[in-house]
């Protein structure tokens, strides 16, 4: 095995292959930055490259693109409040307020450093777990997945700012919207009105674009000036250094969120959208500065970014070791392997060990290259928050248009994005949390699907069939009652001196 690792490192650092990796990183970053252009679509467009070049070159190129797409996605999330990728939505919750305070450089550095370290963490875990991954993956069935989703939903309480009732209303409405479309458990068409457009439900990208980006556009147009409203008028290199230092200051949070991301990546079908919100919720629940979340807290950028990038390592592991792709991008990687005549699964661990390690090393190297590029570009990119709003607004609106349109090349998606823009504006004005709406929307279908599968296959007591699901249930209850327990302990501690 050591020989295979050494060979993989030598191969990746060959100038020819390194150049392809670099090229892949640039494409991945650009695709990530441009809203609506999914990494999967880009991989599909570039898939024919596997016919023309050496297998190691093709795999290096495709993996490098996929490894850094999420890293690119954070740029527009921070600068304009537009999620570049759906997995960068949680990043904007604190990244954009930081930009509004004139700390875009720091926020970008937070995100880039956390992404870099998270990606490397995912790669290292992938390397370590390759020989022992099978029992871990097989341990996660429908009851465990159901509990992961419930755990995510429980964060609605953690995300609530202001009125808890309004936050819960928004969460319930998000759940409701997630049920629009074809129900694969029964074949029913729910709330479609007989319209084909709604069969697959409402796509998440137009919803996010509307709820977050367009709402901020309205605010920006009304207030005028620049995105950055703080006292700062320029981005300094010290901001970038501060951003890097923040990540090392919160290194334990970064490690925890990377572990959550990798764990979620390993489980097929959960996805980075869920991972980022679980990481963000976890960061908020465990932070001493909970009240600062949502107002521009660096931990709110570090947590989702380390989580969504480390997820790639976990997802690659499942794809390579079992041939089970957890996302559309992984399906393309799997197709590339099959075109090359490589059977994922036990074959990868035996006959093609060299290629497997090549992928692991590429994942790590690509993240390092992207991190360095991201940090170098952070300062000039952050300057965009000091550009006049009258120039930025039409550009942001166009990014929303192209981002929503690009999902399915359907003009109706753009209409939906603008519709949700108005909804988001009223939600913001009247204090209904857009974040809890998003959590409900992302997890609604997921909870229902795995609940019905678990119920059908294991009966009503399905949770008691799985120790992991029970542990997740206990963690959820502890998380929900965390505030209450903390208050109780504080009361006891305060009472003690009186008694003594």
């Amino acid at each position, binding site marked *: 095995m050591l020989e295979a690792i050494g060979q993989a490192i030598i191969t990746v650092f060959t100038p020819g292959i390194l150049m392809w990796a670099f090229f892949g990183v640039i494409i991945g970053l650009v695709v990530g930055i441009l809203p609506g252009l999914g990494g999967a679509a880009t991989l599909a467009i570039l898939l024919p490259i596997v016919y023309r070049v050496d297998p190691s070159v093709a795999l290096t190129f495709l993996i490098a693109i996929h490894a850094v797409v999420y890293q690119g996605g954070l740029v527009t999330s921070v600068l304009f409040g537009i999620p570049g990728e759906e997995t960068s939505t949680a990043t904007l919750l604190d990244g954009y307020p930081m930009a509004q305070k004139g700390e875009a450089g720091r926020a970008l550095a937070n995100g880039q450093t956390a992404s870099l370290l998270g990606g490397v963490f995912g790669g290292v875990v992938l390397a370590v777990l390759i020989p022992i991954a099978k029992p871990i993956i097989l341990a996660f069935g429908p009851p465990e997945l159901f509990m992961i989703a419930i755990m995510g939903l429980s964060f609605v309480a953690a995300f609530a700012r202001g009125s808890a009732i309004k936050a819960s*209303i928004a969460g319930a409405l998000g759940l409701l919207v997630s*049920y629009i479309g074809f129900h694969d458990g029964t074949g029913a068409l*729910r709330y479609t009105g007989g319209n084909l457009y709604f069969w697959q439900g409402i796509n998440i990208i137009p919803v996010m674009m509307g709820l977050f980006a367009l709402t901020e556009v309205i605010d920006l147009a009304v207030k005028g000036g620049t995105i950055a409203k703080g006292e700062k008028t320029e981005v300094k290199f010290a901001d970038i250094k501060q951003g890097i230092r923040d990540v090392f200051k919160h290194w334990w949070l970064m490690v925890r969120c990377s572990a959550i991301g990798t764990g979620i990546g390993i489980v097929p079908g959960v996805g980075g959208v869920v991972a980022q919100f679980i990481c963000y919720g976890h960061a908020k629940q465990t932070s001493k500065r909970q009240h600062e979340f949502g107002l521009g807290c660096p931990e709110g950028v570090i947590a989702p970014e380390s989580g969504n990038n480390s997820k790639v390592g976990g997802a690659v592991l499942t794809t390579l070791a079992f041939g089970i792709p957890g996302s559309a991008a992984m399906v393309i990687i799997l197709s590339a392997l099959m075109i090359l005549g490589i059977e994922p699964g036990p074959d990868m661990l035996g006959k093609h060990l060299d290629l497997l390690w090549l992928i692991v090393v590429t994942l790590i190297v690509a993240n390092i290259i992207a991190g360095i590029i991201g940090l170098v570009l952070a300062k000039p990119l952050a300057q965009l928050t000091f550009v006049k709003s009258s*120039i930025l607004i039409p550009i942001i609106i166009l990014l929303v248009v*192209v981002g929503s349109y690009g999902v399915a090349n359907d003009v109706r998606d753009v209409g939906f994005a603008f519709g949700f823009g108005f909804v988001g504006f009223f939600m913001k*004005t*009247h204090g209904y949390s857009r974040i809890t709406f998003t959590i409900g929307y992302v997890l609604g279908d997921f909870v229902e699907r795995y609940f019905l599968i678990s119920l059908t296959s294991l009966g009503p007591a399905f949770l008691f069939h799985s120790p992991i699901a029970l542990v997740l249930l206990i963690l959820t209850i502890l998380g929900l009652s965390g505030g209450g327990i903390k208050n109780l302990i504080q009361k006891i501690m305060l009472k003690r001196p009186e008694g003594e």
Partner: protein
Amino acid sequence: MSHGSRIFAFSLLLIVILFFIPTMTYTFKARVFPLIALFAAASLLIIQIVQEFLPKPKAEETDEQRERKGFGRKHLSIWAWMVCTPLMLWVLGFMGTVVLLPFLYLRFQREGWLVTILVSAGCGVTFYFFFGFALKMPLYPGLIYLKIFS
């Protein structure tokens, strides 16, 4: 609580009630989760509406609320742009919107001709290069083009 807040809560309740009607026509398995969400939303909205009508001590107006009050015309203007953009896309197509939207917006904001032309042309070239040329995205040509050439 403001009238706007009450109207918004009532509108949400109305939407929830509208969702109830088709939900009852689904099979048990298909309606159980939507019903949970609907009941949760409806009961919480009723509590919220009751709270909205309860007399409360007048809270001090925040800076943001003060700012919002003072910008009626600006709100109207950006809302008009938000309504017009999808319509523009539908009628003029992707490339028409990409060039015309920044041009018109910048002119309405009284930006100089040079900035207006540079930004509009820059948007046209950049968006076409990335999405049309490099990624071969089928750019929607617009209703006018389709009517003339189909």
